[in-house]
């Protein structure tokens, strides 16, 4: 049994790491056809070709980071606080149920319909418009995410702190935030990634004037040349990996 268990654990770790290595290898390859197990060409050709013909990749990276960080921070924090109001509200059940509705409308349809109102209101083609649009998607997610956090136990803690003379600020900083930090981390990443990988709505609301990295490289993934596709995948997933690393190393560890 324990042998089976450790095989399972190793298999999971390998399954997680394999795509990263394989995509990197594929992005450095060319002339790789069945039944060859290894590519005929291995080198930087694809990267040089695509990076050389694209302009402003660095700027796109920067603007993506700004958008995603704004969305993730605001959605996580507002989701955390507002879910408290929702959870403690008399009509908690009804409100929680309503939170699901944005997702009941399939995202593709939500995007198509929402874009009409964005066009109507005139907030498109700007970074702010894109942030608002992505926030609308990320916020209900954060709400649902935190809804399981608030319960009688937490409420009792809150009451206890105020009985002991702590104000609301100490309640949050000393009790609630430390208790929620693990969940907040996961929520922060999920909302960051929702925003980072958002394509449909961003392309409509941003109409090419807000060129996020995803908008720039997404296209190659669906095109014929899968070597370029693999390269685009790398460009998309490396920044979040680095962010996870930094966060684990410097933020998360300090919190503990």
């Amino acid at each position, binding site marked *: 049994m324990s042998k089976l268990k450790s095989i399972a654990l190793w298999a999971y770790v390998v399954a997680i790491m394999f795509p990263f290595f394989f995509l990197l290898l594929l992005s450095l390859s060319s002339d790789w*056809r069945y039944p060859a197990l290894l590519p005929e*060409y291995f080198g930087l050709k694809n990267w040089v070709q695509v990076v050389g013909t694209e302009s402003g990749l660095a700027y796109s990276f920067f603007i993506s980071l700004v958008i995603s960080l704004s969305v993730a921070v605001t959605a996580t924090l507002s989701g955390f606080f507002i879910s408290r109001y929702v959870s403690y509200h008399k009509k908690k059940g009804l409100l929680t149920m309503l939170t699901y509705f944005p997702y009941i409308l399939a995202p593709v349809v939500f995007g*198509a319909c929402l874009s009409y109102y964005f066009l109507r209101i005139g907030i498109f083609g700007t970074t702010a418009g894109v942030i608002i649009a992505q926030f609308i998607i990320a916020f209900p997610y954060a709400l649902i995410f935190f809804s399981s956090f608030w319960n009688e136990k937490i409420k009792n803690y809150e009451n206890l702190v105020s009985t002991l003379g702590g104000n609301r600020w100490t309640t949050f900083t000393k009790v609630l935030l430390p208790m929620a930090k693990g969940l907040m981390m996961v929520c922060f990443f999920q909302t960051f990634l929702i925003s980072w990988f958002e394509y449909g709505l961003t392309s409509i609301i941003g*109409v*090419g*004037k807000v060129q996020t990295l995803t908008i720039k490289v997404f296209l190659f993934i669906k095109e014929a040349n899968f070597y370029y596709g693999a390269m685009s995948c790398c460009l998309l997933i490396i920044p979040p990996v680095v962010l996870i690393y930094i966060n684990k190393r410097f933020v998360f560890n300090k919190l503990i």
Partner: protein
Amino acid sequence: MRYLLFIVLLISACAPNAKESEINLDQLSWKDITQKAEGSTVNFMMWQGSPVINDYINNYLIPTVKEKFNIELRITGGQGPEIVQLIMGEKQAAVKSGQVDMVWINGETFFQLRQIDGLWGPFVESLPNAQFVDFNDQFIGIDFQQKVNYMEAPWNVSQFALFYDSARVTTPPTNLEELEDYVKANPETFTISNDFSGMTLLKSFLSELSGSPEGLNGPFDESKYEKLSSELWEYINRNKQYFWKKGTTFPKEHSKMDQMYANGELLLGFGFGEGGIEEKVNQGLFPKSTKGYAWENGTIKNANYLGIAYNSTNKPGAMTVINFLMSPEAQLRKASPDGMDSNTILDPSKLPSEWQAKFEEMPKRKYGPEMADLEDKAIQEPDPKYMIRLFEDFRTQVIEK
């Protein structure tokens, strides 16, 4: 609080209608137009999935129009359906100042945009470089049996072609009978994508069944379509057990077919741009043994175009850029087989002799056929109704059976 929000919404609801630019071409000379364009920004929505095209745009077009006309050209990603969706959305929301000025479209999108009056024009005859284009050429002046009427400016012209891996297939099929033999001998190495490209191939098949390359010309003919298409579905259903995945499903997109050809799963492929193989072989995607060829009864030849959105706020700017894209200089650069590798829409006989010579000196393709080689096998794009019906019936008569 609530009232405040309402007011904010109300104010912003009026915002998109604030500015509008309508110009009257009758009263403006070309010089006036370029003057108006000077220092402006043009938003160009186009497909960005190819590095060689992006290279042409980012490293040649954008700096050149900046230098020559002081125009800031901004590229927006989006092809056919996205362009239609955006313009339809803007129309729906009554947006008067649109987000894009010029769009790169093919006949399919042109047909859709004409239906919703999404294009501004006619403007093409006002462009100085239009003098080098032969609008009587049926492959340029007519798009899907519809007169272009100067509503869109031709940019590239290309012919649909098939290709095969000559290292693994010795004689590729050139008609339906040979295709039947081919799939039986090489099962699961051929399929038809359920998209624009696949339907274009089916149009060639329909044309063959009609008995002549001109068989589908003219307006849509219901009884002709019924007869030919039922023969076609019968043919496909009879043979689809030898297609990719035994014909239980078909690839959604043409790019997926190219991928499967690239890794060796398929041995036959097809596409516009005389097969579009030059770039893909150069990239190391397709094997060097890839060869392009035309169908015996002919394959569709058509042009793709540049249009101006009905609500563009910078029509003079868009016209200036489009005119430049039609210039001998820009067209020559685009024709290089190492670059964008696309055929010029200019009529060489109308060009000044120095330019004629330059076009002639252009090196030939190494892998793909030249358009001139396929010329006698070119057929016209039939009425769009054929495409609508093929899309519908390919699903109900083949995929879902």
